[in-house]
């Protein structure tokens, strides 16, 4: 589900600028500073970063545009590695037997097993390939509006944190209360806050 998909899922945000007006140069600097690394850390389970919309697997913001007539469009990529539990279990069983044979013992201690497990996990993690997930994000600087093209909770949390880190702007989710409050005076917001649910038939 992306920005050009025939079927879209969209959540909306208002973008609050904390420090200064947003200009394309500032956006580019934030994107480059927090782009997906070209050579990822092999020992990390999750790697996150910005990637160009037109080239999500080659994170080069110099060669690929992100600005389209006043709207910034780029993507959040989350690469995840998972060591299959059954594979780890299999390798652990083999390693335990090997260690017992080498040391001539019938049992291994809990600490020894934990140490073997950790070494095996790191080794398998290094060999495992990342599974990338790409989520598009569009940002109208003039109107201070943004769309995120997914409703996955984990991706939303990653987005909100990385966005603030990259651009020092806060994303305020468009939900019933914020959608109403954003256009109100303080007095009207007090009246809004005082509302309670109504029952049909009251």
């Amino acid at each position: 589900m992306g920005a050009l998909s025939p079927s879209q899922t969209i959540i909306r945000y208002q973008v609050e600028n904390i420090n200064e007006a947003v200009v394309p140069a500032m956006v580019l600097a934030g994107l480059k500073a927090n782009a997906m690394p070209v050579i990822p850390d092999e020992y990390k389970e999750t790697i996150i970063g910005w990637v160009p919309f037109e080239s999500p697997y080659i994170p080069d913001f110099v060669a690929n545009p992100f600005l389209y007539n006043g709207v910034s469009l780029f993507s959040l990529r989350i690469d995840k590695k998972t060591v299959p539990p059954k594979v780890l279990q299999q390798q652990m069983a083999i390693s335990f037997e090997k260690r017992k044979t080498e040391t001539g013992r019938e049992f291994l201690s809990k600490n020894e097993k934990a140490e073997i497990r950790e070494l095996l996990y790191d080794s398998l993690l290094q060999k495992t390939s990342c599974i990338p997930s790409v989520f598009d994000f569009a940002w109208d600087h003039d109107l201070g509006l943004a769309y995120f093209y997914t409703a996955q909770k984990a991706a939303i949390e990653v987005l909100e944190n990385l966005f603030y880190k990259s651009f020092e702007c806060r994303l305020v989710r468009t939900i019933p209360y914020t959608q109403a409050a954003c256009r109100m005076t303080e007095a009207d917001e007090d009246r809004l806050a005082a509302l309670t649910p109504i029952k049909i038939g009251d």
Partner: protein
Amino acid sequence: MKLDIVTAYNKYQFLGYEFLLWLWYASEKEPKAINYFADVDRSVEITVGNSITIEIQGTGYPEKVIIKREDAGFEEAFLFIKKGGVIAQINLVFKIDDLEFCFDLKGDDFSVRNLRCTSGTMPPPTSDEIEGAILEKWFLNSEVFGCLDFLYDHFIEIRLADELRKNLVSKIGQRVSGSIKD
């Protein structure tokens, strides 16, 4: 905004649910009241599409019931609303001039799902056409959200004026009660 986002979400979800109920009622009974383009020369039609999701709050986890339009025109939905259920999600069809959009709108967080422009499909753009495709998609999305924002602003106006409680609640209640078969 005075509230933190978590409190705003948890405590005021009911605004979204009531908005969906009002939208359903207004689209059937008072379409002129929700005419987005009443003052300009454009046509708009807002109808409920093919499904409504009702959430019934009770002890433990809320129960969700999805009602399709084939089920006697949503009559079953009225039964659940009468029992205190809320409309958690609704499928909507917006016709704006020659454009037709279909999507699901969730009441608690206003997320839009399965948004499609059903009035014509575009082939996937080539690399030269990407910018044009992006701007066109942005325009289409803006049409839908502009309309939704107008409708919600209108709903909040009614809600704050207590007009909903005084006038519409009884009308909606009659509509709900009138649809319950003996």
